């Protein structure tokens, strides 16, 4: 038997041994009806085994509350009265891109519980044995928060989120937005299915316009046939415009022009990178450009240079090589291709200015199957070519895995790259510290009781004749 057959057989044995006793379907349906009427009892499992534990849970809950109240007084000040990062220092400091990114820790607060304010970066971070979770880095470069419930923003955490050009919000699939100043999640429907918050999110955000008004979405899965629809959401009006971009076998790569009036699209490998189509925001084709063979627009909505002159393209098979296309289509001269001196390839993440690219470099070689790789560092590379310069590093322990780096494009040219100072992970989440404080408190009580019993036993023994 090969590995797959052994896995199949063992999995079947392992899972089929699980005893499943479905409650009557009518009971589940009636639970939904109770839910509609607002009854609290509906939240319990129909079989209701938890009710037997209610008195114990109530007592334990009381102890936890007592321990929590006691512990709040012991928490450091920064942990209980966080300020959004943009407000520190009177809000006069410019954005900071840290020269060394920290990762999430078990005690990192969530965006929802302690909003960080505008962010300079977001990236997915996992350590061995944990799931990857988007980590938001505040504009001060030292404030870290994680997205508390990423399934509300993405499809099972698979699709990356986008960071607004001014760093004020995250955009997820299905028209979802997480405001980084308030921690509130909202949904602006792009397709009808987007109203199902916990369900299938049929759209994935591809690019955010520099003026913050437009978001381009792709459909998942991509429609079959000869058309790939892009959806353009106007955040001012809520209107959605569909752009038929041509045949493709994956979500297209797109980028907005710096004045937010045009959209460049390349439609995946089925096109062979044969054409880059430029559309206006009404969905009409304006012009077509020819990139070098096999090249696609740079990913992550970063392709268009800030001066509007260039489109950055990349051959997915040669991830160290970058090339440029004249965005105007008038035949203007463009810089020659750049081969980046990073061993395992790079992924464009933004522009520091018209002359300088910012790239995320991989820390390991790619595999034929396209397994996601971890990113190691940010490097600057001159458009004119030359040596890359490392400007920042990501968590790079053996257990760390970093993917899907997104930077606030509007803040990058202004950002100072430096040591961001003492880290702020926000108030330690209650679900993390309450069990530990409560456990410590119970251990203390147990030790005191044991001490009392020993003392009583000892006193009784001495008093005995």
């Amino acid at each position: 038997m090969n590995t797959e057959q052994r896995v199949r057989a063992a999995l079947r044995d392992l899972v089929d041994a699980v005893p499943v006793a479905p409650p009557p379907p009518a009971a589940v349906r009636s639970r939904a009806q109770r839910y509609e009427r607002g009854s609290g009892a509906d939240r319990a499992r129909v079989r209701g085994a938890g009710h037997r534990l209610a008195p114990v849970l109530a007592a334990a809950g009381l102890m936890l509350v007592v321990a929590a109240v006691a512990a709040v007084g012991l928490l450091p000040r920064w942990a209980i009265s966080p300020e959004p990062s943009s407000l520190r220092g009177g809000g006069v400091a410019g954005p900071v891109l840290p020269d060394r990114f920290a990762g999430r820790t078990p005690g990192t607060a969530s965006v929802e519980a302690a909003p960080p304010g505008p962010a300079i970066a977001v990236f997915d971070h996992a350590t061995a044995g944990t799931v990857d979770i988007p980590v938001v880095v505040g504009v001060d470069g030292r404030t870290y928060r994680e997205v508390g419930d990423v399934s509300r923003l993405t499809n099972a955490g698979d699709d990356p989120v986008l960071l607004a050009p001014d760093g004020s919000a995250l955009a997820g699939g299905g028209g979802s937005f997480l405001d980084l100043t308030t921690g509130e999640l909202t949904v602006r429907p792009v397709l009808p299915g987007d109203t199902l918050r916990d369900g299938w999110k049929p759209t994935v955000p591809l690019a955010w316009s520099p003026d913050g008004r437009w978001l381009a979405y792709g459909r998942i899965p991509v429609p079959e046939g000869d058309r790939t629809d892009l959806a353009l959401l106007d955040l001012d009006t809520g209107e959605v415009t569909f752009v038929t971009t041509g045949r493709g076998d994956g979500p297209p790569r797109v980028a907005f022009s710096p004045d937010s009036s045009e959209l460049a699209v390349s439609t995946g490998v089925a096109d062979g990178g044969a054409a880059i189509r430029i559309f206006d925001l009404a969905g009409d084709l304006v012009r077509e450009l020819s990139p070098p063979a096999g090249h696609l627009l740079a990913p992550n909505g970063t392709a268009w240079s800030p001066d509007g002159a260039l489109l950055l393209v990349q051959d997915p098979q040669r991830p160290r090589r970058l090339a440029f296309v004249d965005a105007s289509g008038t035949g203007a001269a463009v810089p020659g291709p750049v081969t980046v001196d990073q061993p395992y390839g790079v992924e464009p993440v933004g522009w520091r200015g018209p002359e300088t690219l910012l790239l995320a470099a991989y820390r390991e070689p790619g595999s034929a199957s396209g397994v996601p790789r971890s990113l190691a560092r940010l490097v600057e590379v001159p458009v004119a070519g030359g040596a890359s310069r490392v400007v920042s590093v990501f968590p790079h322990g053996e257990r760390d895995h970093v993917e899907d780096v997104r930077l606030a494009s509007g803040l990058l040219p202004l950002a100072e790259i430096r040591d961001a100072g003492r880290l702020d992970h926000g108030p330690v989440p209650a679900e993390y510290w309450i069990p530990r404080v409560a456990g410590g408190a119970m251990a203390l009580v147990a030790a005191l009781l044991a001490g009392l019993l020993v003392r009583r036993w000892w006193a009784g023994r001495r008093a005995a004749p």
Partner: protein
Amino acid sequence: MTVQAPATAPVFDAVYARHYAELVRLAYLTTGSLPAAEDVVQDAFVEWWRRCDEVRSPVAYLRRAVVSRCTSWVRRRVRERSRLPDLEVAPAVPPNPDVPAVRSALARLTPRRRAAVFLRYYLDLPEAEIAAALGCRPGTVKSLLHRSLSTLREHLDEH
């Protein structure tokens, strides 16, 4: 079962009868906990019944909802305990020598990968349906399965 009409009680009961156990097993493998699995699946059915007018493909919706809820459940557990929950052992597992290796390999996989393994190797779903259940691209399913199979192979080779 492919159902395109809005749910009525008979439709609900038919889907429930046919898919409840399989969804509980999916949720069990993803969360590692049978009580959590039952909660998650019943919540998903309740949600479907409440939103029956909006859901056109209930089985796909239920799988998606179960994976999503399981992922959220595991994330909360990870935050509370700083590690993925182990897979509870069912009382009567047949004496297959590969079961311990598969179980310990699954304990090292993220919930999404556990779900992908179940959907591929237990339900034998094609990549497109797995992608629909996980809410990701088919290419992502390939890489999820590739990584998961590598981990499973390592454990099977060690045993």
